[in-house]
């Protein structure tokens, strides 16, 4: 029962968000879609950071890779040369549908994270943090300027906008279920043991390196999937998959409580919800007949202040890093 609650509670939150998103106007629905994609990203982060206790600043590069894979391959071949004139080789004509593009995005994230993790997972602490940050810098730099493989500084326009409320919700749910299955598996438990006490875990025969590498690859795959969902939601630019997204998603994880799956989902929904509400209020919203119209920029300010405040008052996050019922 308790075990079921561990996956049911975050899943129910995701579903409730999706249902609420169906009930509102299409202008407001964009915010719900965006928040659901953020849930997918934060859960992906959680699989590695939450279970291993090692910070990674590189995960947004896996999201970017998912965006790139799904984006380049789904722009209709007829429009592709107009949008991305520099494309070389099969990239200039190969086209796939919506679902295959998402699967390929996840695969790209998984393979890349595994390849990067092979050397990097030998590091720990701040060295790991800076090295994963380096990966983010390099991926961002290459995707931004190397126009033989993508749109460069331009947005991924003309990508079919297939991420509706159901696709976003199912994507986020897949992430939640995979994260649950992983943390319940013996691999997940072994990794959590290394987080609690690396010396004791090694002494018990657990290879810290292998467990971290596995979690890194799994979470890279989920991040790639989230990237695929993202590019099918709106025409994004590589520039928006950089520092700001890294900070906001990490903050979501820490504010929710990085030790639990529930914390990842709660953090993403809480900050995503607040950010969306305030952004909507900047354009003016009616609440119970009372018109609220905030000056532009309030949302960023309020979210930053709130993040700092929650961390000072409750450093272990809203959920305290615990699952429901524990």
């Amino acid at each position: 029962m308790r075990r079921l609650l561990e996956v049911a509670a975050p899943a129910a939150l995701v579903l409730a968000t999706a249902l609420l998103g169906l009930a509102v106007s299409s202008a407001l629905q964009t915010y719900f879609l965006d928040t659901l994609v953020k849930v997918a990203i934060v859960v992906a982060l959680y699989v590695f950071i939450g279970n291993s206790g090692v910070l990674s600043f590189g995960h947004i590069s896996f999201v970017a890779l998912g965006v790139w894979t799904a984006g380049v391959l789904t722009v209709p071949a007829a429009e592709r040369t107009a949008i991305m004139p520099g494309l070389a080789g099969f990239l200039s004509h190969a086209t796939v549908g919506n679902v295959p593009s998402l699967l390929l995005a996840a695969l790209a994230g998984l393979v890349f994270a595994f390849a990067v993790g092979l050397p990097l997972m030998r590091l720990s602490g701040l060295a790991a943090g800076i090295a994963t940050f380096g990966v983010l810098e390099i991926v961002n730099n290459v995707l931004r300027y190397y126009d033989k493989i993508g749109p460069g500084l331009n947005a991924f326009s003309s990508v079919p906008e297939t991420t509706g409320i159901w696709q976003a919700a199912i994507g986020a749910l897949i992430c939640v279920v995979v994260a649950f299955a992983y943390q319940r598996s013996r691999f997940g438990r072994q990794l959590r043991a290394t987080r609690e006490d690396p010396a004791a875990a090694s002494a018990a025969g657990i290879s810290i390196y292998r467990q971290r590498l596995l979690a890194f690859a799994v979470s890279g795959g989920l991040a790639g999937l989230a990237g695929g969902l993202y590019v099918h939601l709106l025409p994004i630019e590589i520039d928006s998959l950089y520092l700001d997204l890294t900070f906001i998603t990490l903050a979501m994880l820490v504010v929710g409580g990085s030790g639990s799956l529930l914390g990842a989902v709660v953090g993403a929904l809480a900050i995503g919800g607040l950010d969306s509400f305030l952004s909507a209020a900047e354009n003016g919203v009616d609440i119970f007949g009372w018109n609220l119209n905030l000056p532009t920029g309030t949302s960023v300010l309020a979210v930053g202040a709130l993040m700092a405040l929650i961390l000072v008052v409750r450093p272990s996050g809203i959920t305290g890093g615990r699952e429901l019922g524990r």
Partner: protein
Amino acid sequence: MSVSWQTLADALSLGGIYALMAVGIGLVFGVLRLVNFAYGQLIMAGAYAIAYASVWGWPSWAGILLCFAVVLALTMLMDRAVFRPLRTQSPAVMLVATFAVAFLMQSIAILAFGQLGTIASSMGPLNQPWDIAGVQVRKIAIVSIVVAAACLALLQLLLTRTAVGLHMRAAAMDFRTARMLGVRANRVIGGAVLISGLLAAVSAVMLTARNPQVTPIFALDDTIVVLAGVVLGGLMRPVAATLGGFTIGFASGILGGALPTNQSQYLPTFLFAAVILVLLIRPNGLFVRAGGGDRL
């Protein structure tokens, strides 16, 4: 690939400024085990102080004074409001908290001053070239090399010749034992934070002179590179961290001058590929002897 004297002087001066920033970050890390990501935003605030002073027509010394006042006030505020309550938390929580502060300060800057930025024209004269034996070198390059060297020398004296410096080094080595032996925690932390603020102000003046266009993301890229440099050098030892900061500044200055123009946009790729490579070979830092050795 040829490196001109101008590039060399520029790289040396960038290395000097990054070394100062590295000390500012490294000292606070030493006593608090806190990586202050918001360090760049302190510098940004100082740069805005100089820019606005020059818009108001203040003389440049008054702008520099205002810069020091603003940066020090913000440093103290940051310490009181964020670092102190979080002192006992894990490094990850503290790091993310400084992210939040950085994010907050940046959005305040965007709201208050706009995205486009302000020009700090009072620093213009420092950007004029000097003619040294037929080689054109920007004045600011020379000035920042001299200032950085002076600051580092003073700091070395402070750390090795005064009681406070001794306490700081002891606290950086083992905070609990140091406290048991009579080192006063608040004084040591306050001292480290204060020096780190002073160095941020000095760096703000230098960076503003190099690049008078002050925007809300001023010094953000520099801070990221310095952070990488500090970890690269060896965060656990102040001198190693400083050398790391200098090395990465110097390397990026030389690389920036040596790369052909059609590849110069890939500078971060080369720089961070090198950082990752070095970290894999020397995870504890480039300038740290394997198996310990003494601090400082």
